[in-house]
């Protein structure tokens, strides 16, 4: 098992949190910048699961850490998408970092650890999960995130608690619109009515996040690709990085819809 350690390195990020924990327990890594929380109900629909996965992928590809709660449903899908996108995923637990709940997600937790992510909790090792601890951990999720995306949530779910805590901390909340007849969409639709940014697609989410958080971390490295239309050859000529690395980056950017490459011409 990865070493468990106690840290207060994240204290600066948690300043706005109600009753900030004096320290956190960690397995694996810590986020190096405010992340993007992707949260939602455990009893999600296939629609929600797919969206959570795609959004997790998009955010990870853009380079922000993805924060969620390792619960079933939306949380697990978001973590999965993060791994696919090659990003850093962080799970904030309502139990000790050595107690993975639900046990189904043990594999997922291991993969987060293997892929430079981490497991974080304010509870000491061995602490069992308990219903009252989950709402409390939601304030940490909100605290470590620069924005919270709610994918599917009923009006009574923990996801709405996370959204409210985020608003209290002065952070932006985004929500994925859903079927108005479905209970699991009610929470999201309500958030949108009350002013949350609606998320219309992965690209739309990245655009909104860039408005909120500033240019995406991968965009910083994407400076290799100037805006407008340029020949791919010219981009490579002007870059002193290895050709392979720049080409790989171009393809990633293409897959997330940030670049278009056609006939040797790169366009944004």
């Amino acid at each position, binding site marked *: 098992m990865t070493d468990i350690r106690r840290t207060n390195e994240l204290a600066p990020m948690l300043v706005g949190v109600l009753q900030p924990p004096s320290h956190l327990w960690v397995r694996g890594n810590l986020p190096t910048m405010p992340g993007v929380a992707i949260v939602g109900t455990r009893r999600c629909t296939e629609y929600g699961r797919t969206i959570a996965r795609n959004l997790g992928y998009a955010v990870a590809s853009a380079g922000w850490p993805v924060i969620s709660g390792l619960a079933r449903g939306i949380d697990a899908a978001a973590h999965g998408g993060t*791994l696919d996108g*090659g990003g850093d995923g962080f799970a904030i637990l309502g139990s000790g970092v050595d107690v993975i709940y639900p046990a189904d997600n043990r594999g997922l937790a291991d*993969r987060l650890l293997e892929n430079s992510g981490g497991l974080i909790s304010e509870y000491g090792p061995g602490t069992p999960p308990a219903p009252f601890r989950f709402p409390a951990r939601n304030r940490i999720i909100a605290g470590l995130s620069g924005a919270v995306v709610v994918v599917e949530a009923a009006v009574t779910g923990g996801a709405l608690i996370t959204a409210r805590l985020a608003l209290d901390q002065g952070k932006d909340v985004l929500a994925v619109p859903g079927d108005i007849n479905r209970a699991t969409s009610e929470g999201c639709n309500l958030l949108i009515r009350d002013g949350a940014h609606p998320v219309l697609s992965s690209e739309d989410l990245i655009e909104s996040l860039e408005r909120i958080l500033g240019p995406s971390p991968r965009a910083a490295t994407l400076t290799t690709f100037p805006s407008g239309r340029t020949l791919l050859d010219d981009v*490579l000529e002007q870059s002193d990085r290895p050709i392979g*690395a720049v*080409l*790989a980056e171009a393809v990633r950017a293409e*897959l997330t819809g940030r670049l278009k490459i056609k*006939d040797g*011409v790169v366009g944004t």
Partner: protein
Amino acid sequence: MVGAEARAVRIEAHVGRSGEGFTVVGLPDASVREAKDRVRAAILSAGREFPHRRVTVNLSPANLPKAGSDYDLPMALGVLAAIGDASPAIARVVVAGELSLDGSVTRTRTAIGAALLAARHSWPCLVADRDASGAALVPGAMIYPVATLAEAVAVVAGRQPPREVIAGAPSTFEVIADMGDVRGQPVARRALEIAAAGGHHLLMVGSPGAGKTMLAARLPGILPPLTAAEAVEVACVWASADRPRPISEQPPFRSPHHSASMAAVVGGGNGHPVPGELSLAHRGVLFMDELGEFPPHLLNSLRQPLEEGRVTIARRGSTVTFPARAQLIAASNPCPCGFKGDRLRACRCGDSALARYRRRLSGPFLDRFDLRVFVSTPDSSSLLGAPAEASEQVRERVIKARSLQVDRGEINGRAARSDLDRQPMDSGAAALLTQAVDAGILTGRGVDRIRRVARTIADLSEVEVVGDEQIAEALAFRGDL
């Protein structure tokens, strides 16, 4: 010679008690039948008597058609042995040589093939003096050079020890066209390096004058040198096309014009089948410029040979196989006018013309190209810039990457799905592939291509497990025609 391979033909000679005449049986063609007069004259010139009795020479197996002048010397030796003038001291010897009327042995195109056959059975091999140093390059060959029929008789009868042969050195590798001359065009350069390292077929699309031909001509210079055995194979193929090529480390480079006939490109011809350009490019490079101008049926008939690494030509009653492990490099304009994606000039093609053009370039043949790259015209500043990396350096990396593949068994360009499945790939790589398929930029069939290319990229950077970085770069060469 059957195809590019020499077959052993046993020469039997019989001298009857009476009568007169000289018959050759065993499916000789006109050129072999003519040997009779050369054999007779050479025997007389060697100071021997030609028997005034009935002479029959049988070329066995009798059902294999024979052609060429290589049977002169063995037939003469056979006749002399039959009349007891040259009782052989050697049980079996491979002999290939044409005779002059004055009894001297002249060179033949089958010497290397004969040496290869002899070496396989550890028989000695008699060839003309001028063929000897080349034939001696065949690993394990025991070459006895002879200048005249009289000398051949003496050697075979054991009256004279065979002369020593000094094996010539194979022509060494020489970079004819250097990568240093290519300015700019980093994408195409990289594609060329990957193609060389993995033996992938490469398609270059770009405007006229973008430098596609220039790039293609530089591929042989960054390929690993041929091994001794490969060099012999190549020399055999060329010999069977009646185009003697010295045994050389240099991979061949062939570039047939799009107006070339099917027989000229794939192989065939009237009567005696000869190898086409595809086989002449065996172990080397076949460059097809203006790919779209080649007739579709020709491209289709290249598909199977490219996959199998050999061409089979069926003739009534027999089939002949020529090796054809060539690496294909093709070039095409992006559109009918040629200027789509050009730096300076605008494309004047209508959408429907463009669609028609691309359709011609699509289809199963295009699937053979693991790497597809768009070649942009370099701009003036890079043309005037510093010389780029030379072929020598690129080749060093290619050789290293190739040796990793040889250790695994097969070069990546020819790796089948089962070979790929044995190659480790990390979860990020697999996820990226799935993502590419889901995003619609890659078809299921394209996945194997990307995996092959990614493996080569990993070999070039000496990475053991293919990761998402390699897959991402490989995707940059997927092309979208």
